């Protein structure tokens, strides 16, 4: 099933569930169908997944129910151009992708022309330049194994959250992540908690910037909430892994 649409905020039912102080916007992407594409990192076959789309839609439903806005992209709709300037991900505050990954980037179910799956690699995009994208959460294997390689992709982006290890194919992770964000946890803690609580073998990680905001105040993006959308200069980069 392929679908892509912009889901409006559902205001009607938010009276009985917690709503964050201000609404944020999310790009939500999930990919299950990779076969017969080949893995751009290993050259071997890519297996289909069974839970990534469920995880993404669960995340989407919980965030829209809390009054946030989402743009969704699933399976064959999840393409490289989603990450272009002025495209889907850049128009939102936080991009959440769930699917295959590798130490060289996250893997999309799109043929790059030679039977190999397309991959978003370090340096391919300058995230945050023309849009408002501040955070990327990657529910994909090993994307932060070589965290510092992502430095060249930051251009307004605050942080990337993901894993250094292999991760399991969990349908519950999107629910856990959304619940934690809705409960008011920082993006880092919400993600770490979601990954830990759905995969007992996983190692969560974050890579981000430290700098100053427009007023010159020091800002550490490791403690960002989804409402922390201010611009931050890039003075140094940090990574945290377990």
């Amino acid at each position, binding site marked *: 099933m392929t679908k892509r649409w912009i889901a409006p905020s559902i205001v009607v039912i938010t009276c009985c569930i917690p709503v964050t102080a201000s609404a944020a916007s999310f790009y939500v992407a999930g990919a299950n169908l990779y076969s017969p594409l080949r893995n751009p990192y290993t050259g071997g076959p890519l297996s289909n997944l069974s839970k990534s789309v469920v995880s993404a839609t669960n995340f989407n439903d919980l965030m829209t129910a809390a009054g946030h806005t989402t743009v969704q992209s699933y399976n064959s709709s999840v393409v490289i151009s989603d990450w272009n300037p002025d495209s889907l991900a850049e128009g939102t505050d936080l991009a959440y992708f769930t699917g295959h990954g590798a130490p060289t980037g996250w893997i999309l179910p799109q043929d790059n022309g030679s039977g190999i799956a397309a991959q978003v690699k370090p340096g391919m995009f300058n995230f945050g330049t023309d849009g408002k994208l501040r955070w990327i959460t990657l529910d994909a*294997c090993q994307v932060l194994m070589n965290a510092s390689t992502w430095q060249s992709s930051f251009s307004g982006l605050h942080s990337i959250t993901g894993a250094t290890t292999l991760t399991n194919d*969990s349908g519950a992770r999107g629910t856990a992540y959304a*619940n934690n964000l809705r409960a008011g946890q920082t993006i880092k803690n919400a993600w770490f908690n979601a990954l830990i609580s759905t995969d007992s073998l996983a190692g969560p990680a974050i890579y981000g910037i*430290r700098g100053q905001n427009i007023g010159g105040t020091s800002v550490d993006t490791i403690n960002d909430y989804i409402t922390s959308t201010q611009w931050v200069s890039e003075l140094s980069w*940090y990574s945290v892994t377990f």
Partner: protein
Amino acid sequence: MRWKLGLAMAAITGLIVVSNVAKQNSVPEISELGKRGVVTKNIPLSVRTSLPAVPSTQRLYRLVQNKRSLVEVEKTARDLGMSGKANEIDGRFMVRDGSNSLTDYGSGFWYLDEQNFAQAQKRPGLQDANSSGAAANRIAARFLPPGVSIVSVEHHEGKATITDANGKEDIFPIGHEFRYRLSVSGVPVVGPGAQLRVYIGANNELDAMFFAAPSLRPEKELRIITPAAAIDRLQRRGVTASQLADSAEVTEFDLAYYVPPIISTLDEQETLIQPVYVMKVQVSHGDSVETVTEYVQAAEQVD
């Protein structure tokens, strides 16, 4: 005539019994066992550990949901040094006290010192792994309910890397994580719904703790495959690693019960808890060697 009727009844009863046995021996596939790495099937798979002798059947269990009361959650918060009242959010109890938060899931909880957990800065007072491990063990023991015990523990070091504008890197430890494997009422359990992680920061203080321990209700016996058959099943299913594999070697092997994430069982009245074979596998590809953990369902018949 009467003996013929008796024979017919016995035959019907026998068919029913056979049918029931077949039914109890068939269990659903545990779909969350699969990792999302590179799957390599039918590679040479050797065994460098002794395979345990296991009986031909194992008992099945059901997960019993225990929703704790507000008072019980507040007591856990106080035991963690927090004050404050518990509130219900999204069906879960939460306590907040400054930068500390406690989320209770019924069969587990997540404690977080949001200011300290996973800091990206040097932490004076950070102790070595042995000292922090002793602190973690004391904390873990304090929160284990009756019937839950620790089987083994694994240490991971939290690390931060700071890169300045000139590209100069500074790498340093920021905390210690201890991952405990548990047993519940003598039943060894693995998986996201049965784990204890304790994070120790500066001065051996608790930064965070994730705890999940299910309550289990025994069910019927289930026919399981032998360890040798489990290795064969893994070979056919494929070993999942971050690279393609040329060969693999099983270095550890045991039997446990897989418990799914608490979050996916919250809405279900009864979740079936099944036995799995747990294997540590060293995967080789050229000169590189990687150790992965594989879970293989132990049931003889999987739907």
